[in-house]
């Protein structure tokens, strides 16, 4: 047996490696999402400097993003990073000592900003002014490669203009630079699409976002609301609202954003391969941030518990749920990444209501199938309203209060028009014939441009006259 060598050390190094952090942190997040994290910080900045809730709490605040071959820059006037936060703001992860600084902030885990920087490039300066401090923190390639130093240099600067922050990242990684240069059209289009949906509500409430000097126009869901004779039948959304015992404010509305498509329209859509149903599906909003946009899967109750799976015939149905809380921990969001926590109890409770509401509109669609002309007429009596206005309208509706159901709250169940024919005595007939033949028969009826379904119906009526 060989003799063993005794060890001298009393301790061994278990410190994390900076390079490990940097690469792990950035690996499982998309570039677009990490840019959204930076916008989230701007919004947190606004809430910190101006916590009052008005109709347009973000009015006057803006963020500008610039994407160039070797530059990512985001500048904002959202209040800056308070100097008293410097002990936390630049560290990776949340210091347990740190107190929540303002109600309603989404930032919690202390990684968004750093992750975005490390994802994009090797050099970065963060300049900021908050009330009476104006300073700049710099991250360099040398710092990134040095496994031992965790301190960052900071210095006073002269800041002009309103309190705000500029994050400037250079020495970009080549995969990032490619997105900003060679793929720039595609990348900016996609980024703008994501921002226009995910920040739609915040932009509508006054925040201005520019990408390479182009203002981002918000894209919100607008549901058809027939304001005439509210006690009568009419196309209106299903509405549910409540404040949970945890003090989370919930508002849900689901309905039509357009008339249901006719069979012909559906067939046409099938032919174009990459058809996107645009505004169909569920959008879920937590503290004004959209976490799910136009989802049409089980995540939002499609194809579950009696609700049919999403299919092109349902492209007219769209819904929104808004969750709001002063304590972001109570919201059904994922921990470190953007997205819905679909197993959060509050979400599962609300999902019942989502399915309940959605079912009303899938039923309507099925009942009026083949008579889309009539449903088109019914829908054109209403107008498309944004959620904010639907909220106002809901004050005038007679809501039904429940207190002993899975999720207590108030709800409005619209009384949608029903087809006159009782369903059970009528059946649908459909068949396929060659186009030229249909045209021929249509011409026989005096109009070769007749809709195929009309041609079929006329044939039936004709024969029925004989058979009667």
């Amino acid at each position, binding site marked *: 047996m060989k003799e063993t060598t005794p060890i001298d050390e009393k301790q061994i190094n278990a410190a994390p490696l900076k390079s490990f952090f940097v690469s792990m942190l950035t690996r499982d997040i998309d570039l677009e999402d990490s840019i959204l994290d930076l916008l989230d910080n701007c919004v947190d900045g606004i809430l910190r400097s101006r916590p009052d809730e008005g109709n347009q709490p973000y009015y006057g605040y803006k963020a500008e993003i610039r994407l160039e071959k070797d530059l990512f820059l985001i500048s904002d006037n959202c209040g800056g990073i308070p100097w008293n936060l410097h002990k936390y703001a630049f560290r990776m992860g949340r210091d347990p000592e740190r107190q929540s600084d303002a109600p309603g902030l989404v930032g919690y885990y202390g990684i968004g900003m750093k992750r975005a920087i490390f994802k994009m490039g090797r050099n970065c300066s963060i300049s900021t002014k908050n009330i009476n401090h104006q300073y700049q923190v710099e991250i360099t390639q040398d710092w990134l490669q040095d496994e031992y130093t965790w301190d960052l240099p900071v210095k006073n600067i002269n800041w002009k203009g309103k309190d705000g922050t500029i994050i400037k990242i250079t020495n970009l990684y080549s995969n990032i630079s490619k*997105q900003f240069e*060679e793929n720039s*059209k*595609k990348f900016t289009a996609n980024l703008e699409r994501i921002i226009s949906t995910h920040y739609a509500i915040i932009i509508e409430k006054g925040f201005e976002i520019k990408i390479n000097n182009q203002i981002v*126009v918000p894209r919100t869901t607008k549901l058809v609301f027939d304001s005439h004779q509210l006690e009568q039948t009419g196309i209106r959304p299903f509405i549910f609202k409540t404040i949970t015992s945890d003090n989370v404010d919930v508002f849900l509305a689901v309905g039509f954003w357009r008339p249901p498509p006719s069979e012909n329209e559906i067939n046409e859509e099938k032919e174009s*391969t990459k058809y996107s149903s*645009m505004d169909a599906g569920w959008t879920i909003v937590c503290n004004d941030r959209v976490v799910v946009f136009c989802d049409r899967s089980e995540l939002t109750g499609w194809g579950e518990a009696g609700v049919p799976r999403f299919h092109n015939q349902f492209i007219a149905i769209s819904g929104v749920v808004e969750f709001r809380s002063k304590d972001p921990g109570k919201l059904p969001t994922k921990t470190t990444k953007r997205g819905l926590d679909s197993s959060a109890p509050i979400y599962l409770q609300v999902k019942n209501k989502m399915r309940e509401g959605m079912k009303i509109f899938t039923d309507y669609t099925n009942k009026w199938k083949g008579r889309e002309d009539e449903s088109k007429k019914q829908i054109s009596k209403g107008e498309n309203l944004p959620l904010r206005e639907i909220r106002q309208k809901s004050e005038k509706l007679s809501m039904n209060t429940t207190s002993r159901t899975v999720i207590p709250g108030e709800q409005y169940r619209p009384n949608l028009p029903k087809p006159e024919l009782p369903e059970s005595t009528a059946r649908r007939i459909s068949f396929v014939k060659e186009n030229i033949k249909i045209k021929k028969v249509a011409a026989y009826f005096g109009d070769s441009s007749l809709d195929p379904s009309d041609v079929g119906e006329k044939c039936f009526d004709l024969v029925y006259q004989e058979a009667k």
Partner: protein
Amino acid sequence: MAGPSYHMRINKAADRFSLIEIIKRLPKLKNNLDEYTYYGFGGPFLEDMRLIYEFYPEIRMISFEEIRKVFLRQKFHIPCGPEQLTLENCNVTNFIDNLESTDEKSIFWLDYTDLDLICFTDFEKLLNKLSQGSVIKITIRADPRDYWIIPKNIENRRQKSRMIENFRRIFGEYLPRPSAVPSWKSEDFAYLLQEMMQIVVQNSLSADITNLTFYPISSFYYSDSTWMFSITGIIWPRTDFEAVEDAFKDWEFKNLVWNRPIHIDIPNLSTKERLHLQKHLPRERPRGPVLRAEMGHLIDEDIIRTEYALEQYAAFHRYFPYFLRGIP
């Protein structure tokens, strides 16, 4: 087909001729023309086939035509023997779907008459299958009137917002901005379609997966009663832009960096007028005033328009087709 008869589309004829000019410069990129196959929708008269055969008899040609009647008419107009030109009675989308990727060089002209999603998806698929040195020309309808009605009343306004919604729904994934709408100005509409084509290129030949890209060579918009947009480019290594620049630097109508499309608007001149102007061409810009003086009369409403028209004529005069009474 609506609009003036095929032969009378002078702006389209110039666009077609621009392809001849592009092909002429391909050897500068170390491509032998006899390595190429030309694929196109020849139309009933196989006009582009006739032209290519006239200039570059070494290029093999394949024409696809979906409509049986037109296909039979093409057989009648075939300008050369079957070794040189194959006529296929098939749909272009199917043709592209069934096309095998090869190292052989191709020149494709996707000459659509409408504006459909399929134009973009066909182009996207084709970009992925063709080899370095291949040329693609794609022509699509770009008529603002398809999307623009003056919103006089509520019904109009509704109809208009439906049309725009429809446009966004169909083309959403290729729009450079989600809020983009078709402009009522043909130039802006054409540029929007060009930006959409650029996104197709960045999707299909994304910088993070390949060093091949599609460098545009020319882009035009014109109307022979219907507005059209037409862009031509080459599949080439991204890192070798200089070679492309070099090959086309002498060509007046090049557009190598996705600049705004160039307007083709050739005036309708009589043969006599043209023969008269020909004597004073080519010459340096601006040519409108000089040619107007030479002509001695106005060919459009006023001086400004006449000079614009003559400038256009001077630019494209070599691409101007002759319609002569001849022996059939």
